[in-house]
């Protein structure tokens, strides 16, 4: 899609994690949105929650897999992104994972090496069980904490310092709660992903500390077959682990670089190169959106993608292009990229009016 003498048209797609997004709140079910946007943009930057479909994934050369904490720093202009051809991935396993479940995850890593040709270093087991705790907040969003974050970070330090990995895939043992209403709703494509908030905390901790690409896959006991589950959640019912998509995403995730890097490269990406940002209409209260809102980057809000959040752009005084669906958003992006005002594609094109000069009342 790149044309000579034009800068790459770059779109950031955000579907916040653990807020019950109708599209993207389940098993990588915003991936079709990104696949379509990747056809009208030169570059798409998005985060693992959007792209991870457990055993399903779709690798695209113009889509960057950027963990949420890193995406926030990128949006703030503090970190840049440096595309790479491949990463040497380190696998960090929670000591709390039972031996059989651990073997299932190690087999995924071996399969990714043999079948996909990914470069995966030896694995590290944390020096204590991480003890993930899930929480649903008053807003309806899921959050979570881990009791042993220092153990998580020591394991990541070993991977980075001793094994020289360039990206980290974490697998933490999450509590099995097979009879919970939240899980049953999730499998039916309703409600909020009960695990998502805690997953984000885990990957944020590592990215904040080590500034390397990171993503998380929960280790859970297999669920009994339910023939009625929603297509939006079905990708997580296909295997014993959620790890394949994480390894595929991390294998080419861009590196984080500091401001004024010692050896800048023409392919480095910075926040000021972003041409548009897409978010669900009610979820404009995240760090990345507030950072981009301080620039001239158009904010496109998608009404159809409902969430549990109650923060529309206007509540924060943000200017936005409101669209009803991702299909409409893709049209706006295509028009914007072509330098065409979206209004010109509608019946709302009014005639020009003479400019009325504003005069101060004090004059």
């Amino acid at each position, binding site marked *: 899609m790149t044309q000579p003498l034009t800068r790459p048209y770059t779109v950031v797609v955000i579907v916040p994690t653990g807020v019950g997004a109708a599209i993207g709140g389940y098993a990588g079910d915003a991936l079709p949105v990104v696949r379509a946007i990747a056809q009208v943009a030169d570059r798409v930057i998005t985060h693992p929650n959007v792209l991870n479909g457990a055993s399903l994934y779709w690798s695209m050369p113009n889509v960057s897999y950027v963990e949420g904490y890193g995406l926030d720093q990128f949006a703030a202009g503090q970190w840049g992104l440096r595309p790479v051809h491949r990463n040497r991935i380190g696998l960090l396993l929670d000591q709390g994972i039972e031996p059989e479940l651990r073997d299932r995850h190690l087999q995924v890593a071996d399969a990714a090496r043999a079948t996909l040709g990914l470069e995966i270093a030896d694995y590290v087991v944390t020096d204590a069980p991480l003890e993930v705790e899930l*929480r649903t*907040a*008053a807003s309806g969003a899921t959050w979570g904490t881990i009791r042993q*974050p220092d153990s998580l970070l020591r394991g990541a330090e070993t991977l*980075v310092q001793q094994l020289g990995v360039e990206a980290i895939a974490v697998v933490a043992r999450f509590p099995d709660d097979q009879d919970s209403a939240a899980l049953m709703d999730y499998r039916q494509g309703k409600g909020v992903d009960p695990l998502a908030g805690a997953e984000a905390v885990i990957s944020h901790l590592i990215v904040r500390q080590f500034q390397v690409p990171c993503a998380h896959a929960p280790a859970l006991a297999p669920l009994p077959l339910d023939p009625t589950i929603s297509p939006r959640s079905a990708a997580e019912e296909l295997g014993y682990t959620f790890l394949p998509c994480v390894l595929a995403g991390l294998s080419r995730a861009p590196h984080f670089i500091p401001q*004024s890097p010692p050896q800048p490269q023409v392919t480095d990406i910075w926040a000021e190169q972003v041409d548009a940002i897409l978010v669900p209409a009610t979820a404009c209260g995240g760090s990345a959106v507030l950072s981009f809102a301080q620039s001239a980057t158009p904010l496109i809000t998608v009404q159809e993608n409902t969430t549990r959040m109650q923060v529309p752009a206007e509540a924060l*005084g943000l200017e936005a292009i409101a669209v009803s669906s991702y299909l409409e958003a893709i049209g706006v992006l295509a028009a914007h990229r072509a330098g065409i005002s979206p209004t010109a594609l509608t019946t709302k094109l009014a005639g020009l009016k003479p400019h009325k000069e504003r005069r101060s009342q004090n004059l």
Partner: protein
Amino acid sequence: MTTSLVSPASKSDFVRPISNRFRIDFEYMLTQFVSLSVPLQANPAAMERAIAQALQSYGEPLRWAITAVDTAAQTAAIEAVVTIATRVA
């Protein structure tokens, strides 16, 4: 790979220059969930600063979001996870 950079003073406390890479300078760390309310600000930059300042009293902000806005009261509801670390002496 370690680089030494200083964050511009005008940026919020959330932004983090790449530094201290690969080094852990604490013994213990806790993660804690925080819910609070912050007065609405005139612009996004001021909003980010206000949230950062409010969260700093609980720990180091890791993840946060404005989850609702009360336009009558002119406040924003914030949910966050912060970390609290015991530093190495």
